């Protein structure tokens, strides 16, 4: 399984905070996004936002990234703390 986490405004836009996705054919972050859009066509707007950031296992990743069973992948908008 891959644990997927949506945070902040993205969580509200998708109406989902977390979901578990079977690894299946998902080998990379790009595969995961494709899978998520196929399962939920209404997510394409929010999930295609070019400003979205991604983290795998609590570390930022840029571009594509290899995923493994048990990974936690998070998608979120630019951060605004401090």
């Amino acid at each position: 399984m891959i644990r997927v986490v949506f945070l902040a405004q993205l969580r509200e836009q998708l109406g989902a905070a977390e979901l578990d996705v079977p690894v299946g054919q998902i080998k990379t972050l790009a595969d995961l996004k494709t899978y998520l859009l196929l399962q939920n066509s209404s997510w394409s707007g929010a999930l295609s936002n070019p400003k979205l950031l991604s983290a795998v296992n609590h570390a930022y990743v840029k571009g594509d990234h290899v995923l493994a069973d048990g990974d936690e992948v998070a998608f979120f908008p630019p951060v605004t703390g401090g």
Partner: protein
Amino acid sequence: MAFSIAVQEQDFDVGREYGELIFGDTAAGAVVFFVGRVRDTNYARDVKSMSLEHYPGMTEKILQQILDEAKSRWKLIAARIVHRVGELHVSDQIVFVGVTSVHREHAFQAAEFLMDFLKTQAPFWKKELTGQGALWVEENSKDVGASLRWNK
């Protein structure tokens, strides 16, 4: 306690944080700290309160990385970051950054660096309750610019 972070709902006491930062220390000639507070106006909107969300697990990891990076760049004796989450109201304290060093230029630079990187790297998000409703705070391009100046 020399280098530590905390992410918490409860308020922090600046006098106590300062006291713990310098406790037992006789070398730190310079102490710099920053406190960020909820202000009543943001981007011309009147703010009544805000909710601060974070990504548990990643937040602590990123704050620790920022602290480690500051330690590697400047001669620091102690440093601490405290960031609140949850519901906050106008005038509430949001964030505390404290740094001690032998020399004040190190303490000042490290404190600014910690704030600039916290603002652009740590996974916190503010949603403000304003006169115009609840609005997510947008990324601040000034913060992005401020963090870029530290690129080696």
